[in-house]
């Protein structure tokens, strides 16, 4: 540790901004990698992080975190804790590792871009730590599952998932490429660190760590909370960047960047966290519903913080509140029905007591969503579980890449039409799940129009043979890896149909 108090030297060593004489400002910060949005250089130099840390302190802190974490991992590895985890929780953690681990590493690329192309030395300094953080998160979240491979071979999806064309991973890559790999440093500070991390993942990791501890998954809980402490620090790159944009009269720029990413983050959050909170987490360990979580933490606390900067809730606010009632229920049904296309074993989460909880948290759930489970349960009880398995694919949205569930919103009384939105552009047809998804696409068609969704690939002959087995092979799923019912249909045998005879 340095002998001088940090405050005596920090600003001096941190603020190494200078005027260029051999090259132009544009050469150093090309717009594609660092869009300054016309904010004067000197304004960027006022960038000031709320959380200050030196390199020596950083290394000291991180070493301490890792020492604690690996102690837990070591002890847990020799216990029977993993074997005794409930199937729903296993589903949640397997999904998490695959969707997140390598994405963290990819976020390190984003942080590295800000560490080079951030427009102030203080910012580049913070981003350097951010890059080290994300590298750490990528490594930890591949190492921990690696440790348990002998207990669950599909934990290798922590590393494998990102390198496949599994549909959920196409969605994740589409999002993360837009957010960081194919983004510039300034937009990234708003979209990755402010919108996504401050708004969503920081809170999600806090919630997930707490749930893990309740469930008894000490290893995962320790891992997630350790990661969250890094996240809480580097997510703070967003706020100073936002302040500078607003002070320079670029409120509209900040609002647009925010609105685009907040919606995208919502969609993937509904898919991953929505299922995890309302269906996969064992009932006795649930503290709140996904909708309650959204209302309390994101829509209230986070948006209040956003309003403090003089910005507004996104234009699609009503549609967001609307989707919170139904969209993740539809996604869960879809993931369950198309379970061979995921690398975890989805649990239905529809035992009678679970349905009662869903009905309480989402009044009307039995009539709107329970009825699908009634038909499926009837088929299972009649000895036809194959009728709960797919013979074709859902069409996916060309923006969020998630199956189009507009019919569920309509059937549940939340949408006025079951129809998805279409856009014909340059001889190609694009389909969208919602007005905001279409809007996101139209904000930057050049960014998105060349991308082929899994369905575009299927129809374009990329997937051969064009059959379910052909598509599963394309997605990197061998028969042994394909998801199966996580509780061997216990839900169907335990449930009492609400309505009378259904099925075929």
């Amino acid at each position: 540790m340095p002998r001088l108090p940090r405050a005596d030297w920090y600003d001096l060593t941190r603020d190494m901004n200078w005027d260029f004489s051999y090259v132009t400002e544009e050469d150093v910060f090309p717009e594609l990698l660092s869009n300054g949005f016309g904010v004067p250089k000197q304004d960027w130099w006022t960038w000031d992080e709320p959380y200050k840390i030196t390199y020596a302190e950083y290394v000291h802190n991180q070493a301490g975190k890792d020492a604690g974490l690996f102690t837990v991992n070591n002890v847990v590895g020799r216990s029977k804790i993993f074997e005794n985890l409930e199937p729903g929780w296993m589903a949640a953690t397997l999904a998490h590792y695959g969707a997140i681990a390598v994405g963290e590493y990819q976020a390190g690329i984003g942080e590295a871009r800000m560490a080079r192309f951030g427009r102030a030395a203080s910012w580049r300094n913070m981003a350097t730590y951010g890059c080290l953080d994300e590298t750490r998160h990528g490594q930890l979240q591949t190492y921990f599952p690696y440790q348990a491979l002998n207990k669950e071979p599909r934990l290798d999806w922590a590393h494998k998932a990102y390198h496949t064309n599994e549909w959920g991973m196409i969605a994740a890559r589409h999002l993360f490429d837009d957010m960081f790999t194919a983004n510039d440093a300034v937009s990234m500070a708003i979209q990755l660190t402010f919108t996504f991390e401050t708004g969503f993942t920081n809170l999600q990791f806090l919630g997930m760590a707490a749930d893990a501890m309740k469930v008894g998954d000490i290893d995962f809980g320790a891992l997630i909370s350790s990661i969250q402490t890094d996240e809480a620090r580097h997510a703070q790159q967003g706020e100073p960047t936002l302040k500078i944009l607003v002070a320079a009269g670029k409120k509209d720029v900040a609002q647009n960047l925010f609105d685009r990413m907040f919606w995208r983050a919502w969609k993937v959050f509904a898919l991953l966290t929505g299922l995890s909170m309302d269906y996969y987490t064992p009932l006795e360990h649930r503290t709140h519903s996904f909708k309650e979580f959204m209302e309390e933490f994101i829509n209230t606390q986070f948006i209040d913080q956003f309003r403090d900067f003089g910005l507004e809730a996104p234009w699609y606010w009503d549609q967001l509140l609307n989707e919170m009632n139904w969209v993740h229920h539809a996604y869960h049904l879809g993931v369950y029905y198309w379970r061979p296309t995921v690398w975890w074993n989805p649990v239905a989460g529809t035992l009678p007591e679970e349905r009662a909880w869903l009905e309480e948290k989402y009044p009307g759930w039995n009539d709107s969503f329970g009825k699908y489970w009634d038909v499926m349960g009837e088929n299972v009880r009649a000895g036809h579980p194959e009728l709960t398995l797919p013979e074709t694919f859902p069409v996916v949205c060309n923006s969020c890449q998630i199956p189009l569930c507009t019919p569920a919103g309509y059937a549940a009384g939340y949408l006025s039409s079951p129809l998805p939105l279409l856009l014909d552009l340059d001889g190609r047809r694009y389909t969208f799940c919602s007005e905001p998804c279409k809007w996101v696409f139209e904000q930057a068609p050049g960014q998105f129009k060349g991308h082929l969704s899994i369905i575009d690939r299927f129809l374009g002959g990329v997937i051969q043979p064009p059959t379910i087995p052909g598509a599963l092979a394309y997605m990197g799923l061998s028969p042994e890896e394909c998801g199966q019912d996580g509780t061997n249909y216990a839900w169907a045998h335990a449930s009492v149909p609400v309505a009378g005879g259904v099925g075929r």
Partner: protein
Amino acid sequence: MALFPVQGIVEGDFVVVLVPVDDTDPMTVVAEKIAYHGIGKRVAPQDRPLKVRWNGTVLADDSTIAGLGCAPMDVLEVLYA
């Protein structure tokens, strides 16, 4: 006779499905091909004939995709009459 992909919605179902139909199929057959993926699987069957709606219009039973001039990946809704 040509394979023709459409986006199918079964009334009451939760998702839009990809369904390959034939452009010379009459709508009664198109309806069955789409309904196959939803009715009896997630949506309880009813003892009523099925109809197809396209661009807000309920189609005649003997009309065809080719005859109507539908575009690939148009959305067809299957409803009980």
